[in-house]
């Protein structure tokens, strides 16, 4: 038996169809599981935590303002992780983007122009990551580990001793704390961006190429996917989304800080994994990631409202992540993932060793 069992193009139709079906069913089932968990979580908090229930619909929707920036980073991170790469520089990128926007505005530049310029800077940062990964062929884990430090330092340098605050009201309303009826503006922006990213991954040729690259890079090449360009663009999109997250954070707090994004990276990766995206790429759905944004976010906020400290909440998030993964592994096993594949997924193989930083 060869490794071809994992290649959707490398084998005859007899081998291909069942795998595709199983994988698809597994993914769909996980999305459903996350949805059920989300409903159960909200129900639990509404019943068990009076302070949470008393917030009402608009209050609970308003809570989302606290975690949607993490969600934006997670969307971009999901694109990169689907290809089997990873971007550790997103948190620092958010800080940088927020600081650049604020600094430009302080210099007298129109705030909206500053936003656009900050997003361009973020795209450039993503392009640097992408360039190192595609042109120099360096594992993304290493590249983004390095650029993370660099972006962070640049953000601190740009920010100076007294980072700017008190942005124009129109900006703060749109990016931060404003709302349309009970729905926060941030939620609307997030929804629009999430739908676009979801369509991009689930409904376009580009998105299919993205996932195929993560599943089997050789197959992707043979299927005519421009691997390098797709990888490069996924890093650029990830950078822009992280930059957008930084702008939303700054708007929400009405201040820019050079380390504001640092705490967003790990929750974002947690969201992506919780959403069912395989950390080795090639498997997962954006719908799961979008649901996971709310699952983890409401878990966090609910615990805080219940009176737990933020570090306890973070700890619970870690435990939930482990439990969910155990559940997922159990479900996948029951769905009959072949021993061979589970071995490969768990321990990696020579083929993966050569192309992926799948640590």
């Amino acid at each position: 038996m060869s490794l071809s069992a994992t290649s959707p193009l490398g084998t005859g139709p007899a081998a291909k169809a069942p795998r595709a079906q199983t994988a698809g069913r597994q993914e769909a089932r996980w999305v459903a599981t996350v949805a059920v968990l989300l409903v159960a979580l909200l129900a639990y908090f509404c019943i068990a935590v009076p302070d949470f229930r008393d917030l009402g619909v608009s209050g609970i929707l308003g809570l989302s303002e606290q975690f949607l920036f993490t969600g934006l980073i997670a969307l971009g991170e999901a694109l990169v992780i689907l290809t089997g790469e990873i971007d550790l520089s997103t948190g620092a990128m958010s800080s940088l983007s927020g600081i650049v926007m604020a600094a430009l505005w302080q210099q007298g530049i129109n705030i909206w122009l500053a936003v656009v310029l900050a997003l361009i800077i973020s795209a450039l940062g993503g392009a640097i990551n992408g360039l190192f990964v595609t042109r120099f062929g360096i594992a993304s884990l290493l590249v983004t580990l390095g650029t993370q430090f660099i972006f962070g330092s640049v953000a601190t340098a740009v920010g100076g001793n007294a980072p700017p605050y008190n942005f124009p009201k129109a900006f703060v309303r749109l990016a931060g704390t404003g709302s349309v009826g009970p729905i926060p503006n941030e939620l609307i922006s997030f929804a629009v961006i999430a739908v676009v990213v979801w369509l991009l991954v689930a409904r376009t040729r580009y998105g299919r190429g993205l996932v195929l690259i993560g599943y089997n890079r050789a197959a992707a090449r043979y299927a005519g996917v421009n691997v390098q360009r797709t990888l490069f663009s996924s890093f650029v999109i990830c950078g822009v989304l992280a930059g957008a997250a930084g702008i939303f954070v700054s708007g929400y707090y009405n201040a820019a800080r050079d380390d504001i994004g640092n705490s967003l990276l790990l929750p974002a990766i947690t969201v992506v994994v919780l959403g069912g995206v395989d950390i080795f790429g090639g498997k997962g759905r954006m719908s799961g990631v979008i649901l996971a944004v709310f699952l983890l976010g409401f878990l966090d906020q609910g615990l805080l409202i219940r009176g737990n400290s933020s570090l306890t909440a973070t700890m619970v998030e870690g435990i939930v992540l482990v439990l969910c993964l155990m559940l997922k592994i159990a479900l996948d096993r029951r769905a009959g993932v072949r021993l061979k594949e589970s071995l490969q997924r768990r321990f990696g193989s020579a083929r993966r060793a050569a192309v992926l930083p799948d640590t």
Partner: protein
Amino acid sequence: MTTLPTPAAAPASSGGPIALAGRFGDIVLGLLRRREVQLIVAILGLFAICSALHPQFGVPSNIAFILADSVTIMLVSVGQTIVVLGRGIDLSVSPILGIAAVSIGFPATASHLNIWLALLIALVIGVGLGIGNGVLVSVIGIPPIIATLATLTIYGGVQFIICGGYSVINVPAVYTNFGIATLLPGIPWLIVIGIGIVVLAYLFLTRTVTGRSVYAVGNNAEAAFRAGIPVRRILFTTYVICGLLAGLAGFIYLCQIGSATSTSGSDGNTNLYSIAAALIGGTTLIGGRGGPIGSALGAVFLSEALQAMISFRVNELWDPAGVGVLILIAVVADRQGSPVRHVLRRPFRQPAEVAK
């Protein structure tokens, strides 16, 4: 074995002094291709430059400071290296270090805990938390980066709970004296311990069956599995050793700093610096290549570079950028041959193997 495989010296043309010179050149070139040698050259070179430019850089006390400062990262990074050699990663080393430091720090300040007992407790805590990681990765089968990401938050919470809003301050002099004791002027005791651990790790990885198996598992887990190597047990062991060394680093951290808080370990970027030291030392994150000596030298180089930046009044805020640049230089240098030529010759990375 623990180093980059030296490319076989090209057989020089036969006989004559020119050939001899060629052979010698090949040997020198071969040595220079070893990351350890490159790093020693870099460490000495940087030291020479800095000493020439700054009168206080070369004094024994500064050397002692640089060496002692590198020990915590060195120990953690040796543990990290062992995990990485098995194609894992451990993102939870910073809270392990922190938990060890605060758990012995509180009894040490409150009831003058015996220093040897403290050391033992730190090691036991490290092993216990390492077992936690090992179970998640090798028994349950969660990908290492995710499993240790989860334990990073869980252990971080535990550290916070242990502290309960307090910090360890005024650690007894027994501990802090140990932290600053020197064997000879310029050679702190801590570095002796560090070197001892590095040597032990080197012997473990090259002279024991378990240690060699780590390389095999890291190179190709499936092949190792088929060859009868107990892959899960080996992986489990690597996480336990990493935890042990992080615990030891926690003990040393406490002796050196003389205080500890609920964010000790995490606030010093221990995770990333330990990975950075391993990378600069030539260990590759895809496993199976590298070794503890390189990582230890990487830690010394990091410490020296950061100290140099301080000496020359580079604003502290650029420290992380310095580390980042060093990482990028190290990984680009890790590609065989010149990166520029690589770009020109092969713009597209080829998949290593085409499924047949």
